[in-house]
């Protein structure tokens, strides 16, 4: 099966969702997204970083430098309170949208 390109704007949601599970560094986030989506989604790993910076500027996430699992310096991101609210809101939106799309697709022609 061909991998799916990410829909516009969903990367932010996936990052927030991933970080809701705990603080993580950039590479870790990319691995987690790939694992959870069972390699269906194709995320250009580099595009993660502008997205992280956007979320940071918006105040949804925070970052600090720390030691990685193999004891190297890595930048860890974590969700802020504002980010948690944003995640809730975006999840709800996403659900409403998928339900709507689903309904349209199920309509008998």
């Amino acid at each position, binding site marked *: 099966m061909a991998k799916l390109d990410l829909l516009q704007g969903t990367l932010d949601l996936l990052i927030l969702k991933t970080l809701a599970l705990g603080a993580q*560094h950039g*590479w870790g986030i990319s691995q987690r997204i790939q694992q959870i989506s069972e390699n269906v989604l194709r995320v250009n790993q580099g595009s993660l*970083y*502008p997205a992280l*910076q956007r979320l940071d500027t918006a105040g949804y996430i925070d970052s600090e430098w720390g030691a990685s699992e193999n004891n190297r*310096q890595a930048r860890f991101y974590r969700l802020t309170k504002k980010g948690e609210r944003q995640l809730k809101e975006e999840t709800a939106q996403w659900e409403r949208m998928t339900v709507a799309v689903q309904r349209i697709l199920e309509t008998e022609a």
Partner: protein
Amino acid sequence: MVKRLMALLRGEELDRGLNAEVRFHIEMETEKNIKLGLSPADARLKALRSFGPMEKHKEETREARGVSWFENLIADLKFGARALFKHPGYALLAVLTLGLGIGANTAIFSVINGVLLKPLPYEHGDRLVVLQQSRPLSGQPNVGVAIAEYFDYRERAKDVFDGLVEYHQMNFDLINRGEPDRVNTGVVSHNFFDLLGIKPIIGRTFVQSDDVKGAEAVLLLSHTYWRTKFGGDPNIVGQVFEMNDRPHRVIGVLPNVPHYPQENDVYMPVLACPFRAASEGQIARNRRAFSALSVFGRVKEGTAPEQAASAVESICHTFTEDNKQIYRPETSGFRATTVPVRDALTSGAREMLLILLGITGLILLIACANVANLTLARMLGRDRELAMRAALGAGRGRLIRQLLTESTLLAVVGGAIGVAFAALTIGMLTTFVGRFTSRTGEIDLDPMVLVFTLGISVFTGLLFGTLPALGSRVDLVSALKQGGGQAGSGAGRKRMQGALIVAQVAVSVMLLVGAGLLLASFYRLQRVETGYRSEGVLSAQIFGNFSRYPNITELKKLYLPVIDRLQAQPGVNAVAITNAVPLGGGAPGTTRFEIEGRAVDDPERRPTTDVRVASPQYFAAIGVPVVAGRVFNDLDNEESQRVVVINKSMTKYWEGTDPIGSKIRPVGQGIPEDWYTVVGIVGDVRQFGLARETVAQLYLPLRQSPFGLAGQVLVRTAGDPTSFANLLRTTIYSVDPNQPVENVRTLDDLRSEALAAPRLTATLLGIFAALALLVTLAGIGGVIATSVQQRTKEFGLRMALGARRDGVLMMVVRQGLTLVVIGLVIGVIGALAAGRVLSSYLYQTAPRDPIIFIAVAAVFVVAGVVACLIPARRATTVDPLIALRAE
């Protein structure tokens, strides 16, 4: 926003962080790939591939940080500075014009900030109010508060005020190390300084126990007096000085804060003032005893100022109703209210300052219009550059931003020059405003002013940058096709230039009319008939201190010998003593009087007059003409019949009958009920101000005066009066070596002093108007010059086809003059509408004085023709052959 700014400041550090982060990512991915069985090289390659285009991602990350606009700005600034350095003439002219405009505004704003905007330099200065009593129905806008009234307010208004304090000023002789020094003495409640929140820099201020009967007399020194008279002696506290025949001990020194309501040398508690203390005993018999107090209060926290005012009003209402026979509220309208101290302090300057701010605002607009025009002219040569950049992909928005960056850069540099300009002129302005308000000590180029300057600089830059940008829709193709010099002389731009010139002319006309009106008014004021001759007269004050000269009988022992001895000096034509010199300051007195046979029952309806005391030669000394009857002579003494002389204005109360021979008497507290016979009528004298209409005045002979007076000596000399000053002093010292001689001035000086404020106002506006005219004419000249330059070919062609030189000249001049005339019409309409704001500064000059308007119009037409002719002549010197070959 904070994050963005932080990101700006830490740009490089963040870049290092990003690089490290990406490196870490690639390493992790590579390790993962190695574990999956790839060779290290392949593993790294695969990691890089799955990362995607690295530089693009980094760039996007940086942009997400919000740095790009800043980097763009830096680039624009660098580019702008380079472009400006390439055209130093344009840049210099623009920066200077703007510097002048911004500088004028900065200077005026710094004054407004210091006088009107800053809170008073006292703790809770915004809650300080001054109590004002008036009798509006009998024409007395300001009535001092009496001791009994103050006590009423103090007792009954406790729920709205933290406290009420009293103040009055006295002049006492302080014997300072042997020499008599006449000091301005503020006599204040013991809690006066506490209420104002003023802490002494040495020692202490007054406490309650200083202000009881029999307490030791104590003094506080002002900072200035301490510095100038005692050289800032740190051991001043505890020193004892002789004052009012008693020892006074210094207990402290006040900090260097502005004094309100007046500057004083020393302060004492109220009971230490012999007059105030003596009067307090009389208040049971006389409610209005010592009605010379100023009363201040600090409104309680959370109490509205209106509440305090209405509390004071109702207390006043109660005591006037309880004492109707004294206050006669029905006919006097006696009332009281409170006014914020800051407003009371600056009310005289507010209007003037706002007018000046309006004027400098107009000047800035003219400067903007001028620079906008310069910029438009310069853009002629830039069309190709702009078109090129547009062709290379710069959007219209990006180009406009570049232009705006340049104009703002110019304006900010102009602003810096403006601040320098303001720093140079602020001293002169402070002196000027000092004639309208006493609150000038806090005028300064402080951060608030600098913020204002930065604000108007940026605003100015955007304003004059936007106008040319709007007028220039760059037409890519035609701009690139044409040669540099003649590109894009679009109609839009021409209209814009024309409109700017019209606006400049209109505003300049308004300013010129204003300046013209003030100058005309000043001219008339200078030539006003004062009713006396000031030249050759020297004046001085010799106010015998009450401890040695307690009443008029004693005072005459000082004054009469002084007159005699001065009279004996060589070169003296006439000597007199009076109670106030003309134009020496002060307001007319309002003593009520009664004419025999014309009695008015209600004292509030009796006519009022200003009472002067004059020795026999007074009228001769200052040259007041005798209209009828006689003036005083040496036979009008204590024993002879009581006589008075009145001025012409006072004769109206006789309703057409001859006042001479009739009897009148002044009535009021402490005035003996003697009748005086009118023996003469003298001319009116402008005693209280050149522009002030004369009031009814009554002269009493010095030897018959029932009142004590602060004696003013007047000496008419044959030669230069200033050279007589020393002889004046030594002669007075020969009568009393301990008598201070103050305020030695010529009457000419006083008169010129009275003209200082209108002279400065007229000069200031005159300078502003001249600046505006100059800038505008330069603008007209510039526009005509560029237009002539553009049309060189056309002119050449016309002349080749036989057009005469003066025909071409006329054509060019007509083009410029049309703009001038349109601007003139608009400006005249504006001046007619706005002239009213000046009316209170005009003397016998109507704000719509047709002569001024005609003169201004004439000036503009002539100046406009000249401004057009200079560049227009260039058009006619064009050699047709060269012009046609120019392409």
